[in-house]
């Protein structure tokens, strides 16, 4: 076998939509050493024109961002805004770990571009509590120990809040059906059902 490490310097050309460069405001400033192998002129450079200004309203706060149009809401939350309570379990809309609320409706933030939600009210797990007072769904999850490792929990809670907002769930069977998009590998399901039921019933009782 032959290893070849020769550096090739081809002419510079741009590929639209290519990312990955160090851009002001996008990646953190690189510190310290640059490596000897880094070429001075990348053959596939980043295109500064592919970045757009986006204003998002997250947990009641305006956020001004310069992002690529195709960046997901999940990556913006985690990588740009340090809102890492929202988790990445699959990045393909198949596990529910990234569930957030947009105008009160639950969505998988990995399946949606941040740019699509200009003007919308985005609520993440960090925005549910009022100061030190937990949202009733958060409190119910604590009271019923509805988690083990906790990694699915932010998604479960946002999803459950969305479920209550939707107003369709009447029974445990409904809860099971309507929460089935949120995987919990630890299998804390029985307690999740109990927690969601409690909030649902509280809502019903409050409405009477």
């Amino acid at each position, binding site marked *: 076998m032959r290893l070849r490490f020769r550096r090739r310097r081809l002419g510079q050309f741009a590929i639209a939509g290519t990312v990955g460069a160090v851009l002001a405001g996008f990646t953190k400033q690189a510190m310290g050493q640059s490596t000897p192998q880094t070429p001075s002129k*990348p053959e596939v450079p980043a295109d500064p024109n592919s970045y757009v200004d986006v204003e998002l309203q997250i947990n009641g706060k305006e956020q001004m961002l310069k992002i690529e149009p195709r960046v997901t809401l999940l990556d913006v939350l985690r990588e740009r805004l340090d809102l890492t309570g929202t988790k990445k379990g699959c990045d393909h809309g198949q596990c529910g770990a990234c569930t957030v609320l947009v105008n009160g409706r639950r969505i998988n933030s990995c399946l949606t571009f941040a740019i699509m939600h200009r003007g919308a009210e985005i609520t993440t797990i960090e925005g549910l509590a009022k100061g030190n007072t937990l949202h009733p769904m958060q409190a119910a999850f604590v009271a019923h120990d509805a988690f083990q490792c906790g990694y699915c929990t932010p998604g479960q809670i946002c999803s459950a809040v969305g479920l209550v907002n939707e107003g369709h769930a009447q029974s445990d069977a409904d809860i099971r059906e309507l929460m089935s998009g949120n995987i919990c590998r630890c299998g804390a399901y029985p307690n999740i059902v109990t927690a969601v039921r409690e909030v649902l019933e509280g809502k019903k009782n409050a409405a009477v």
Partner: protein
Amino acid sequence: MTTVGQRKSHESATGHVSGKALYTDDQRQPIGMVSLYPVTAPHASARITHIDVSAAYGVAGVVTVLTAEDVPGENDTGVIIRDEVLFPTEVISYWGQAVVWVVGETETAARLGADRVVVHYEPLPPILSIKDAIAANSFQGQPLVVRRGDATTALQAADFCLTGEVEMNGQDHFYLETQASWVIPDGEGNYQIYSSTQHPTETQVIIARVLGIPNNRVVVTCLRMGGGFGGKESQANPFAAVAAIAAVKTGRPARVRLRRSQDMTLTGKRHGLLGQYQVGFSQEGHITALDVDLYADGGWSLDLSPPVLLRAALHVDNAYYIPDIEVRGQIVKTHKTSNTAFRGFGGPQGMVVGEEIIDRVARFLGLPPEVVRERNFYHGEGATNTTHYGQEIFDNRIACIWSQVKANANFAERRIEIAHFNQSHSYKKRGLAITPVKFGISFNKTQYNQAGALILIYTDGSIQLNHGGTEMGQGLHTKMLQVAASALGVKIDRFRLMPTSTDKVPNTSATAASSGADLNGQAVKDACETLKARLAPVAAKLMNLDAPEDLVFEDGWIYSRSYPNDRIRFEQVVEQAYNDRVSLSATGYYRTPNIYWDAATSQGRPFYYFAYGAAVSEVEVDGFTGTFKLRQVDIVHDVGESLNPLVDQGQIEGGFVQGMGWLTMEELVWDAQGRLRSDAPSTYKIPTISEVPEHFHVELLQRAAQEGVIYGSKAVGEPPLMLAMSVREAIRDAIAAFGAVDFVPLASPATPEAILWAIESVKARSGAKSGVAESLLVSPTV
């Protein structure tokens, strides 16, 4: 007031529900951190003929590319033997294997760079199944034999004899948090690693090996994990190691965080296993002889396969006494991911073989399977209560749990109801089954059964608690806080539970084998006892008592048993201790006593004790679609005197659900080229909330204190997983109702497809009604 035994909620509960509990990749990113992305092999087996990484440098944001030449130390992350190359230069051993890693300013840059790396391969034919591996004589590790008596002679003497085989699928861990490691260099040749690892010490040792530096230059910290299940025991190491190499080469912090499909294609899983057996038994269903070959699919490298296989061999008996038995085991080598620890560590696979055999015997004799199970239980004293590896089961709780769960579940009545239901329904059949669990607790490797703790009391009376175990959702940290609070006699909120770190407690064992609370709990208690012994004389002096002997530490107060009204605050004693120059920090240590193992004869007392449980499951199977619905589950499980019933109940429910996933829906599919086709939750079916039965009753065995274990508790992480065997056997019971046969072959996992095939085979068999020509159904053998 003691906090041990209370239903205390998870120590990070508020953090979890508010999104503030940090996992490795959630931390505030250090400035200048680079990301890694692998170039993966498009063949399961191939020779590497050429690697050209130069084009990657043409991508903006690519910092460097890591190849074998960048490894400062050893290019190997093997844990038992050195057979796990980190950067392969000669051959590809499984599809998706990482060949080189591209380092970028961002993950996107690294990924685009990886796309441009050119690797040429000369494909070779892969070995992809256990049977192909056996045919090709492709084995690894050493074969093992565990035996008692003379199975061959006993088989010849048996009334009846059956031969058969059962093969089961592996299982992907699918911890919801994928593998993640951050490595932060300090510029002086030391490295701080944050890793989602169940075994920080091993991750430390492997990084030191790969970097060619002493262990003391590497600190590995695990904040917590978003699930582990065994999949972050050895599997965390290679990713932490490549990140470390990136940190060395670039001088910058580096991170590896696998995408879900990468995680599923790159990391090892539960071992698939093939069991081939010959069983001898009497007319009454007593098993008199058993001869079994177990073949575990080790995948491309050895990893932890030898102890996994051993545990399988030591659990074939499950709860049953078999007078003459021989279990042989071998690890096959295939071109697949290197299979590894997974909750139960081979035990479940061994036990599934055992339960399959019991069912064969029962149906052959026309006896209810639960009757045959009962008749074969370990019982009495001496030989009939001693395992095939020579360990006597001194605290046999099987029969007690069995009768309790049968009563709870109304087993006898439901048997009759179900028979009626099945008579009146042609296309839907119900099935009921009860299965026991007896699971040995301790690491098979004796030296792993030790643990350490470090407790630091500060002058304001606040305390830091360090221990060697990692938190992955099993509630270990919560239990350790309870133990420390009880042992030190203070309130739990006085403690800060510190992230697990190799610079606090060195040379730890993996948090595995269900042993986290047993081992670390004793070490924590030991440290507390040391501190109490130092504080007692200080308190006695403050209270003008002569002797510190009868002092009680309780709830933040210290008092003498003789004068309970004269008490003094914990922090006052702490402050005085500081002034008196008494040390306020202590380490604790524990090693499990009375365990030993003779590898040459496969005999000994490998387990400190056994955990027991039993489950009753009822299913309804649809004859048209092969789908099933789990209607009801009743469990009685033995956790000793529970340290925390809330946590333990969660472990039992969660373990059961995970076991059910393994046995009924989680199907790993490799195609003919060795590509894993089930590499995402869309194609790999994890149990969801809708599959959990509505009637799910879990009861902890009462008055069950376990002698010699921390506060009388018992390990709980793994044993409940095997309670899910009752689901598999209930499905089999329902399938049997579609015909009248003496054998119900059922593939594992029992997916709808597998169930449909089984129903077809049952119908065909009971239609043919001859049952003679089948080689699998010969009786008696000579």
